[in-house]
């Protein structure tokens, strides 16, 4: 158990502590969801700790994953993160670390989540976040605590509804201009057309920006290879992804194309622990 806890910290070091950040739009969310146009609200994997904590309740095995992306080849925008989920006798706990930016501007986040199944068709989750924003040249850093709530409902055998509310408390970032962390509500659907195909669509609205629509799908071409494509509405991004499944190892990659800024690439590497023999 102890060695498992150390693992995420090690991975975090590997992926560059020098660039740790977090913020609402700059969170590491795993390359699987990114390959589907970031429509990851209802997916069931360890990155539920980013997208919707309620999904953690459906996870059956302990899972660890780390992700890294360099948007448009700009190291100042690099985003890295680690997610960890442990199913317990009742419910699942999750840990999420995310970091964005460079020395000049950084956003970091640590989240601790708990999710529970309510009946057979429904699950709920919540997460407590510790957020840190730092700006160089004497501007200093701000720390804050925020929360997230998630809900997932199986509407039918192959259709799932997901809802997620980030920062309902409207946590303050700075007193100047009453600046607050964004409050974001997401709602989406996941449709499992067959065992090989998942389709996802969702919408997101925060208190400041225009609504965003996203959609995507994944198709398991052969057992160990999954291809994905998706569309992120704002900014318009075409996303393409590939996932590889090798025994316990999960590797997902994403390439997304922004009309003006160019290519954004990301990878996440995960490990699924076998249940204790």
């Amino acid at each position, binding site marked *: 158990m102890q060695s498992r806890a150390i693992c995420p910290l090690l991975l975090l070091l590997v992926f560059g502590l020098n660039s740790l950040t977090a913020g609402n739009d700059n969170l590491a969310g795993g390359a699987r969801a990114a390959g589907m146009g970031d429509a990851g609200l209802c997916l069931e994997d360890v990155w539920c700790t980013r997208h919707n904590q309620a999904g953690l309740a459906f996870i059956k095995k302990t899972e660890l994953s780390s992700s890294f992306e360099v948007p448009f080849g700009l190291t100042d925008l690099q985003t890295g993160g680690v997610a960890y989920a442990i199913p317990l006798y009742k419910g699942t706990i999750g840990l999420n670390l995310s970091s964005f930016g460079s020395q000049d501007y950084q956003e970091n986040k640590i989240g601790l989540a708990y999710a529970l199944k309510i009946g057979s068709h429904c699950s709920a989750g919540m997460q407590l976040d510790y957020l840190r924003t730092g700006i160089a040249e004497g501007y200093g850093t701000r720390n804050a605590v925020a929360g997230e709530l998630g809900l997932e409902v199986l509407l039918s055998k192959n259709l799932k509804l997901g809802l997620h509310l980030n920062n309902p408390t409207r946590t303050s970032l700075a007193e100047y201009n009453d600046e607050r962390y964004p409050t974001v509500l997401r709602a989406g659907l996941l449709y499992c057309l067959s065992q*090989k*195909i998942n389709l996802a669509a969702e919408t997101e609205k925060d208190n400041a920006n225009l609504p965003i629509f996203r959609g995507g*799908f994944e198709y398991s071409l052969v057992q160990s290879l999954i291809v994905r*494509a998706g*569309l992120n509405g704002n900014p*318009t991004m*075409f996303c393409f992804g590939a996932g590889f499944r090798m025994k316990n190892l999960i590797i997902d990659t994403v390439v997304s*194309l922004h*009309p003006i800024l160019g290519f954004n690439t990301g990878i996440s590497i995960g490990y699924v622990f076998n249940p204790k023999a």
Partner: protein
Amino acid sequence: MRTFRFVVCLIIEFSFQSVHAQVDSLILKEPEYMLTEVMQENLEMQSEASGAEDEDYSELFENLVYFRNHQLNINTAGKEGLQELGLLNPIQINALLEHIHINGPLLSIYELQSIEYFDIPSIRTILPYVRVITRESDTYQSLKDLLKNTSQQFDLRYARVLETQKGYTLPNSRSANSGSRFVGSPDQVLASYQSSIPNLTSLGFSGRKDPGERFSVGQSGKGFDFYSMHLFIQTKGIIKALAFGDFAMSFGQGLVAWSGLALSKTAEACIVERTGAGLKPYTSSSKTRNLRGGGVSLRFGLLEATAFYSYKLLDATVSDTSIGGKVMTVRTIQTTGIHATPSELQSANTLPEETAGGHLALSLHKLVMGVTAMQTRFGADVEPKPVPYNLFEFRGKELMNAGADYNLVIRNLIFFGEGALSKDQREHPNTAFLQGVLVAADPRMSFTILYRNYSPAYHSFFSNAFSEGGKTSNEQGIYWGLTLKPRSQLSISVFCDYVSYPWLKYRVDAPVTGNDFFAKISWNPDKRTEIYLFFRRKLSALDPPAANDPDEINFPLPGIQTNYRLNIITQPSTVIRLKTRVELIWKTDSVQSLEQGFLLSASFSIKPKKRPFSLTGSYTIFDTPSGNTRIYAYEQGVPGTYSTPSYSGRGSRFTGLIQTKTFRKIQISLSFTRTFYDDRQVIGIGTLNQINGRHKSEVQCNLRMKF
């Protein structure tokens, strides 16, 4: 084994009795030229993209008309025949051929349902055009047999706008300038004759006179403005096809040689792959898309070699002539083919164009590869206006093209692509490239991705590849399409296209980008009703509308157009079919002013049983602020016409169409349309088509004889 399959087929047949009935009713009811709803929608999208309302789309459907009369035998059609049908996607074709390969010929049409990727709607679509015969001879046994199969068709079409248009009035005495009037009468006349023996020959003549053109009779007269003639022979032997006179050709994905029409983005989001048909007789009434000369296609086992040659006189604006009157330099090449004004007559047939080329294809079981080479030579130098957007335009006399294409099927994936080079007087050749993949992930879902990159200086005078701008030049883009059928009654089609233009275009003074998103949900609650809802959002950049000074450099600004449409088709009885449409359009142009437009349309068609006539009518009310927010809607016209009029301004439109069949051989169709405008006293102000009145009416009639 075969007995067992026969029993299985029988069981399937009985268990799908409802489909059976559906199918039969469909075959009986639909006249041959009636387009399905999705085809109509595709034409509307095509017209909107090209801005052409009265394009002759008949060549897109001539295969269907042909197969309607000569049903394709699925068992013997082979890959080529099934592709020619144009209604099945490559994965379905592959699955069908595989099925025949493994299990032997189909025993009944209902066996299609047991093949993967064939669902009821797609079977229903192809049913009128196909049949299943286990044993059939492909060749004609005797002369009598040959004569029996010969079909001849004669068409005469007449159309005219009833109101007096400015171009046909006498010129005003003060500005006495005959150049501002049409030279001929406002009548449009088309006559065509075609005689064909299926799978063997086709012989045809046609003549066309457009409104405003001269119909000259007497000694100097040549009658129609445009004539077309073709003789086409095809055999099962070495000579696959032999074309004389006017012909069409299409190879690969259309980067080098594709003389006919082709649809790019359509409501069928996953159908973006092209299948070149090789040489074909030219049967369109369009005046400019033909090749004139001859071609031959030879077959040697897996190899197929095609060579063609064409010589034509094009219309071009002459900018320089030699002392002897020989045309030395031309500025622009006209593509309308209309010779109605003195200036149009002046530029008529001024530029000789000579084209020669060939295609070599190798067809293996799952891989088709081909190379194309072509050379075009003009009789005079082409020298476009020296403005920035013409920097990469074609200049000179000669253009060489070469390309290589392929199509590969691996399991349920289809890869296709073409790469091409063009070499004009510039130092280096320029490239064009297209690559796509279609994945039939599940019988209920498929998706496609297509990437294209056409350099601004790439040219081919016969290219027509997948594009947003309509030209296989100066465009890069990535297209992503998805079709989904979660339930049998429900289907969803989504595409998104991102495009960038590396160089300037007319009225776009900077390299810009754009995107296009389309989503459509259609619901068929039962066989009599079809409801669809669509949404389209298109972002494109244009120079500000006020900017008219050509020498000034403007900043193109993005504008967004959003369309919403609800379309309901229902058949309350077997005799009546009703269609209702509501369409909303929002447009913010480059200066961010919002325009909103609206269209409401209701139409019906009645086809009494056992009576030789049908009646179609529609009434449309439209209200859009300007031509920027025009809405295109398909309208059924007389046979052979595919009209997608655009509605702009405030007004209403009435259409009536009556079709009768007398003596079984002669079919007479008559249509009348009248558009009333409530927001103007004069229609088409400032043009030669100007009408001093609030309404514009048009009559069309068509006489068709089959014998």
